[in-house]
């Protein structure tokens, strides 16, 4: 048993550690905010100031003049929602197969799955583009959305690891009772790895939301562009409008930050190692 003094020490120690760490983690964000609020004149003058001399909140409004960011926001949302949904369900489905059903050739196939991560994307990028072009799907969202319906190695592997902690005995018992694998998958296994599903959702959301190369390659029509492509208008060959770029980046980041902040309660409850009371 721990005595309460020792507990208190650890709790305080942890807290201080967390705060100090937070400062490191958040410093770049402050830096971004600082630049986003500066004028270009001040940025070029190059004095080291965290708080701008002349705060330009208008930067956050001015950026909407440069590109139709509202349209880009809708476009990006459509792609993201579809990809996230597909990623979560399809990958879970496939991963269950690899984790909980034993069949011939499974382990070799699994190495094959992983091996698709090992060739750099830009080597297969052009032939893949050619395939979508031949299918007449360039300049649509299909090339960005469709692949997620066939699973991705990273997510399959991740969910496989989680499914493996679902007790075999449970599955066998259900099989004995005549349940088929679909039933077991939906009713037993899937609910047990909920935290992992949210993890995949968050990861894919982050990935698709920030994807640059895919939309760049496959979209030709500016009315179909995404946020990441839109942000590029602030960068030209010789000069960058840093304040606008940072202001725009912050607005693009905001939904991801909010999503994480509010969704974490669904998958992280915080365990009880330290014997503290549950958070309400």
């Amino acid at each position, binding site marked *: 048993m721990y005595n309460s003094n020792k507990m208190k020490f650890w709790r305080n120690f942890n807290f201080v550690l967390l705060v100090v760490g937070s400062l490191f983690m958040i410093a*770049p964000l402050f830096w*971004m905010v600082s630049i986003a609020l500066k004028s270009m004149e001040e940025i070029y003058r190059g004095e080291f100031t965290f708080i701008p001399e002349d705060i330009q909140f208008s930067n956050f409004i001015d950026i909407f003049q440069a590109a139709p960011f509202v349209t880009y926001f809708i476009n990006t949302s459509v792609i993201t929602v579809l990809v996230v949904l597909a990623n979560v369900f399809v990958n879970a489905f496939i991963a269950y197969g690899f984790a909980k059903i034993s069949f011939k050739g499974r382990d070799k196939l699994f190495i094959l799955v992983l091996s698709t991560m090992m*060739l750099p994307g830009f*080597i297969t990028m052009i032939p893949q583009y050619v395939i979508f072009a031949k299918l007449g799907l360039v300049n649509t969202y299909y090339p960005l959305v469709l692949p997620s319906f*066939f699973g991705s190695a990273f997510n399959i592997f991740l969910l496989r690891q989680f499914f493996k*902690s679902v007790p075999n005995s449970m599955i066998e018992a259900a099989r004995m009772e005549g349940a088929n694998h679909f039933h077991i998958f939906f009713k037993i296994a899937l609910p047990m790895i909920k935290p992992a599903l949210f993890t995949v959702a968050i990861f894919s959301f982050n990935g698709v939301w920030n994807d640059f190369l895919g939309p760049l390659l496959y979209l030709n029509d500016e009315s179909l562009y995404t946020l990441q492509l839109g942000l590029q208008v602030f960068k030209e060959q010789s000069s960058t409008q840093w304040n606008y770029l940072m202001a725009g980046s912050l607005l693009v980041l905001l939904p991801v930050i909010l999503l994480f902040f509010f969704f974490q309660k669904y*998958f992280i409850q915080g365990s009880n190692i330290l014997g*503290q009371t549950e958070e309400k």
Partner: protein
Amino acid sequence: MYKKKETLYGYLFILPWIIGFLGLTLGPLLFSLFGSFTNYNVTSQMDFIGLQNYKELFMYDDLFWTSLYNTMYFVIFSVPLTTIMAILISTLMNQNIRGMRVFRTIYYLPAILSGVGVYLLWMQLLDPSTGLINQFLGLFGIDGPNWLFDPEWSKPSLIIMKLWSAGGSMLLYLAAMQGVSKALYEAAIMDGASRAQMFFRITLPMVSPIIFFDIVTSTIGSFQIFQEAYVMSSNNAGAPENSLLFYNLYMWINAFNLFDMGYAMAMSWILFVIVLILTVINFKFARRWVHYEGE
């Protein structure tokens, strides 16, 4: 030994992947393998030249070895360090302290702040004179290094940046730690186990499937480090003194600046073999230390 019905189910479950693999992945994969034996330049030529690309790489191309060395250096330091960092952060995050949701969001921030903008930001943080990092070191009287402008420090700079964003895999570990039964800890406390003992005897084994996942995927990912180096080396080509010329960056230069796609494809398959071997070794070793609760 395999039941027929189970095999049928198995293939049914992985069917989406098989369709995707055959339809979208296999073609480009084989194409690049074939391309590595040609002088393919993307637009006009693709003549079979046998092993010439491979011979050139192994025997005459110093930059190939430079880029391989740089990449190995990065993998060897960044994979273990970021894994340890991620586990430490997650352990801290897996508590019920007031405001934990805010802390978690803050620690996860670096993973959200991805892409080119962040690399540009880090270039400023690492600026030898005006950067935040050297200003901070200056407070303690330390004369900070020239980071990205010093060939000795440029790779460590990138590793530090990676460490900063280790909070990304915190999500994985937290999700895994949710699955650890509280009864285990309670029993351990009854037995008078220390915190360290509980961490090493309970937490680590229980999340070992995720540690394994993290190591395998970050090894594969680190071998492919590209965008960081592309953006953060001042000439977009590995400066200073080729210290940031990573494998994929050199491959990119060959493919898209010199249009020597066949050569780049040969490079990609050499990397493929290296990473595949490492992954298989990883899997073999995994049997000794990865503990699957369900099996």
